[in-house]
């Protein structure tokens, strides 16, 4: 009987289970209250804020691909039906514009977290300032991309504390630009001029100043732009120079070179099979995908422009060979004769050309492993600063010596003669605009330039053959649609006009 008593007792014991049986903590990762304690935490958090920029959805492939084809210089070619979905601009189906929206908002949220929590961490003050400066820069850079491509966006400057707080309303674009300028101005004061070798690639005061100059230019604030950019040229934020070899800017050997103010960092170690996304173990951080970039067709007017003016040695502008491949003697496309590869296209257009920048199919005998490159992608380089300065100076004060010196420095590297002195303001403007095409094509700048010059979308409408297939321009759609997922989940969002 005793043993049965034991059974009954054990039974009752089972009924009265202790409370903490149901408390399970997550053994896989940290919770926010375990974080934001140390300098190391602050450093991890700022790296986390950079992180979305280099994933496949952002500069790695997708958003770069779609912003590139918006301009008059680039069009998609080939019979790739999947592209219809990748580059489809319909809000409901669109994938690619959604990717940019998501990735830049991630940068903003993470920067906001840094700005919210890092000030309370006990750590070295100058390191703390640097990190806060990086967060301000990243937030400004992300907001610029969002406001430029989507126009009507919310303005969020502190992280949401609950699900309810994630539904923010759109604001006037000018308020976003005000915030960007404030952030960049503050960032300049907090950021170092240079970083140690171990930290190369983190943003500097020069990055922030260069971007601020660009923002002023976009807003037509020429005199402010000229002032800000002049400081960069004068070495206020450290030394920047043109790399003697133009093409080096687009090769791994030119990663974080002397010409670079800000670039997206890529390596070649991640496994794409483990996911092309971000924030998963071993995320691939490659630049591009050969199909999107080196198979991009470049409209022939770009080639015409390159061929218009020879170097002082009577050669073709060397920048042409780093920008495009066309039917020049001996031209190759990954080891195949260009004429063979593009026989059909050349039949329609003898000046058919495709992009070379970053991937160099005219130099490389084979497509790279996984069709990807480890080369960093330049966002602001000194040549751009010089050209922006020349432009801003001309607009503000006319073609001054400073303006001439700036543009000539860029031209001289390409062995192009100095501009003829004595140009009118209008003539000088045209020269700078022309130079920007020769120097910066395929660097994601053309559409931004056309927009600020008031030539977009007119130039696309006037030249329907500049865009093709699914990417035909629809009137009123200067900006991307707000991605449907945002419209659906955020009751405070109104869709952009035209969609």
């Amino acid at each position, binding site marked *: 009987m005793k043993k049965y008593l034991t059974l009954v007792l054990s039974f009752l014991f089972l009924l009265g289970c202790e409370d903490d049986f149901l408390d399970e903590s997550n*053994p896989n990762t940290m*919770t926010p209250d375990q974080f934001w304690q140390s300098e190391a935490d602050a450093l991890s958090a700022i790296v986390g804020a950079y992180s979305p920029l280099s994933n496949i959805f952002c500069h790695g492939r997708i958003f770069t691909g779609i912003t590139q084809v918006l301009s008059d210089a680039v069009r998609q070619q080939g019979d790739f039906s999947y592209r219809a979905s990748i580059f489809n601009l319909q809000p409901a189906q669109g994938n690619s514009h959604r990717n940019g929206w998501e990735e830049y*908002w991630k940068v903003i949220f993470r920067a906001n977290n840094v700005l919210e929590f890092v000030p309370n961490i006990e750590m070295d003050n100058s390191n703390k300032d640097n990190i806060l400066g990086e967060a301000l820069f990243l937030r400004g850079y992300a907001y610029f991309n969002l406001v430029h491509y989507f126009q009507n966006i919310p303005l969020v400057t502190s992280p949401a504390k609950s699900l309810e707080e994630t539904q923010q309303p759109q604001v006037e674009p000018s308020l976003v630009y005000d915030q960007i300028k404030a952030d960049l101005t503050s960032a300049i004061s907090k950021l170092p001029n240079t970083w140690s070798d171990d930290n190369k690639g983190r943003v500097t005061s020069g990055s922030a100043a260069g971007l601020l100059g660009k923002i002023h230019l976009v807003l037509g604030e020429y005199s402010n732009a000229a002032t800000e950019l002049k400081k960069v040229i004068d070495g206020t934020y450290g030394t920047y120079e043109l790399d003697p070899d133009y093409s080096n800017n687009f090769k791994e050997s030119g990663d974080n070179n002397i010409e670079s103010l800000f670039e997206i960092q890529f390596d070649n170690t991640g496994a794409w099979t483990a996911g092309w996304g971000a924030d998963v173990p071993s995320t691939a951080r490659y630049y591009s995908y050969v199909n999107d970039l080196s198979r991009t067709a470049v409209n022939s007017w770009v080639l015409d422009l390159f061929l218009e003016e020879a170097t002082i040695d009577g050669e073709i502008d060397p920048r042409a060979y780093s920008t495009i491949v066309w039917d020049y003697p001996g031209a190759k496309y990954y080891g195949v004769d260009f004429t063979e590869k593009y026989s059909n296209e050349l039949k329609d257009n003898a000046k058919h050309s495709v992009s070379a920048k970053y991937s160099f199919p005219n130099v490389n005998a084979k497509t790279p492993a996984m069709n990807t490159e480890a080369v960093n992608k330049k966002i602001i380089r000194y040549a751009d600063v010089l050209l922006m300065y020349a432009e801003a100076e001309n607009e503000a004060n006319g073609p001054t010596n400073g303006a001439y010196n700036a543009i000539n420095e860029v031209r001289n590297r390409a062995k192009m003669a100095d501009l003829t002195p004595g140009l009118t303001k209008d003539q000088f403007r045209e020269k700078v605009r022309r130079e920007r095409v020769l120097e910066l094509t395929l660097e994601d700048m053309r559409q931004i330039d056309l927009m600020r010059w008031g030539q977009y979308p007119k130039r696309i409408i006037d030249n329907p053959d500049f865009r093709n297939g699914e990417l035909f321009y629809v009137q009123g759609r200067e900006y991307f649609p707000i991605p449907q997922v945002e419209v659906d989940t955020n009751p405070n969002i109104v869709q952009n006009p035209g969609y």
Partner: protein
Amino acid sequence: MKNINLRRKIFFLSILLLINAESLFSNVNSDNDNYSNFIQQPIKGVVTDSEGLPLPGVSIVVKGTSNGVQTDFDGNFSIEAQSEDILVFSYIGMETLSVEVSDASDSINISMQESASELDEVVIIGYGSQKKSDLTGSISSLDGGDIAKFNVGNASQALMGKMAGVRIESNGGGPGASSNIVIRGVSTFTNTNPLFVIDGLFTDSMDFLNPADIESVQILKDASAAAIYGSRAANGVVIIKTKSGEGANGVFVDFESSVGTQSLIKKLDWTSGPEYAKFRNEIADLNGRDRLPGFNELYDGTTSTIVEDYAISDAPVYNSSFRVYGGSDKIRFNVSANLYDQEGIVKASEYKRKSIRANFTVENKKFKLSQNFAITNTFERPNTIWNLGNNILPTIPFYDSNNDGGYGAAALLIHGTDGVNHLGKSMLWDRHYERNNLFEGINMEYEITDNLVAKVNTGLTYTSAKNNTFIPTFFMSPNLDANLSKAEAREYTTEAYSLLAEATLDYSLQIDNHDLNALVGSTIQQNTTKVKGVIASGFPSNLINQISAAEQIQIGVGDKYVSSLESVFARLNYNYDGKYFLSGTIRRDGSSRFSSDNRYGVFPSAAFGWIISKEKFLENNKTISNLKLRVSYGELGSQEIVDYAYIPVLNLNSDGVFGSGQGRSPGISQTVFANPNLVWETTKTTNIGVDVGLFNNRLTLTADLYDKVSEDILVELNIPPSSGTNRPVAQNAASISNKGFELAANYRGEVKGLSFSIAPNINFLKNEVLGLGTNVSPITGGAFMGINATKTDIGTSVGSYYGYEVIGIYQNDQEIASDGAKADPNAQPGDFRYADTNRDGTLTADDQTNLGSYIPDMEYGITLNLEYKNFDANLFFNGVSGVEIFNFAKTKNLFGYGGNNIIKDALNYWRPDNTDTNIPRLSGGAGNNRASSFMVESGDYFRLRNIQVGYTLPKETIESIGLRNCRVYLSAQNLFTITDYSGYYPEIGRGQADEERVVDNNNTLFYAGTDQSTYPTPRQFLLGLQLGF
């Protein structure tokens, strides 16, 4: 700490088991059969019913022989039998009687009792059992015998169509294909599978069972039946009891073996090489392009590679099982082993299962202990990619010895595309899923008093699932998907173990006409899942494939998830006079998946039953032998959401590249929001049922009408990406309604020695999403080749297809012009004309509309059993109606030219000289290749799912060679299928075609019914032999 406590309890309970062990193992002996005298003698007698009236037509058989007679009109019979023979008296509606012939007597008078038949059957309900006549809930039962007649790789498939309201969708027809079991409609967005209770232990699946081990299956469908399982039961409960030695006195051996062959039911009409070349040249000519050399000057004009020919061949299936069972009054045992080996009709696919089961029960006076133990090993090679988007072009030889790996593919300069040979890839890749399942349950019962029984149930289930792939180096083309220069090994292991401990006290009391049963109990469960994965690349050769040999570990992951449940429950069953029944259940559940404020859910239910036929006015009715009304209402819970969803987390993998060496710097970020407000999902079901028995219960009918509403459905939903995160957040959001009507009937009869039963069932279901929550976008799914096939929105059923409605093809520019903005801006003659469904005069994305769904309006099954002398036959038909399939094959086979072969229909494309067609012009897809009604087809079918014809050898023939039983059978599956579906087979399941797919169907609900690369269901013929010793 808590883990230790749980472990301590289980250990403690195991010790208790041993206390009694020594007194249990005694008097185990088997009866010895002795065959004495073989003197035949005529036995005579009269058979009457309980009121003394003679029964004509009673069948009398000498057991184990074919020797049988029937009673005459006055109930008289005469049969040749010998002493110790057993005479079996059977008559529909009467309890079958076995009477041993004694030496002394040559006359036997028999009085047969009316069988309360099925109604007296005991049905297993949660934590107990009940007479079928006493049930107040809605429960469907299936006997192991029915399952045994159906040879399937996956036990769940044998349940398909057998029980009204239980939908079993097989995920295609691959070897060992898993099934989704949906009881009374999809009522949630994550895991739609019911709770499985196998010998008292909770599992997520029944895939590991050897179908032959199943003794009975009960499916608890309404809330009152399932309420005792509260938290887990919102999708219904499947209770499975495996075979024991119960009822067997002695030692018995059963052996069964079958071999069969499977073949493709339907071929598609692929274009031949020359046809395809001609087609491609036409495209080039039409577009003013040079013909591609691969279809013109470099094509030999004869090569004709049809993927189907290389992919599909007849394949064998083999099944063998062995069972030893028996016992005495104190100990019973059942030990079985099974080997199932099925090759797929598609190359590089197979399924093997090995299982061992050992069940023991020992009893000593008031104490009873049973233990159920099983180990199962399954090995599966699925081939989900053989028919994926890109494949070999018919003008290219399938094999190419110049390529590393040996498979041919298109080349850019010759064929216009860098091709992928997906079938070749599936043959090159060594990919397999291997699972080991360990199952151990221990039940103890002790009668404290005659009225009070205490039970303790503990158990452990352990699963390790390996998903391993080795991809050798290969080259087909420079396409990213078509070459690999460094071999890669991917190895993922998921280990899951679940510990259960529960105790119940069961009290019964009968006073006069009052019959009361009360149950209280508690249960705790802890589930631990550990996932590990490695991807490594670079191996010295393709023959060396283990991780240690790799140059580089590309990725290593490891995660662990623990969840706990703690519940108490009580049930009261009361009936008065066997006429009025009342049942009430309440259960309180706590789950670790919710924050401590929201942790507990209380789930009540009540039911009422009334056997009207026992009332005076029906008591002696000749026609109506049983009439019962059942009404129930109850609430059930669900906690099916990822673990830890309420706890905020950081992501440790947001690294960045920095420094002159461009190394990785660790980065941390917040990538998802937590939801501390998560609560239990609740399903409320009202059920009204009627059970009718007519003509002595020869015909029985069960009808149920139900209304089931799920609220606060747990689902991971998008939040605004402007939050800075784009990962969905677990929320209580949607609500779904399922309303249905179920009818099951059974008629048993006998005509001239042929006894038969026919059991049809039918159910009608309407599934509707009532709400999605606030600020929730409709859920899209079924993505494939750039098209989203499904959209779940308010007012649609879950996973409805969504797209444009095609109303014709534009024949000329005038038609397009007259449509104005209603035409697609890019439309040309030969393009689809889409309906402006919202009539706003413009064709926009808003014109996409509901195009149907994979949920059938009606589903039905008919089981027919026939027995004549030593022959028996079992036929099972099933069908669905009002179901649609989103046929992605059309995208691929009609528009996908360039990457793969096309079907002959594609050649009938629209052109000015061929306008009478429904295939649009050649446009590379574009505006025509959208989710549209063109892709949606009826998936209705009616088929003879299974037929088995058996012959049992006469006992006298086999006894001489020491056999107890010998039966041979021939069976065929899917002998015919009537369908209009244009794809391979209308059995799609939730097939998501993906190279990386792990066989896990919980996340593919919104892919259901989309035919991407579904494995065709084969036809199967089997020859089997059953032996009993």
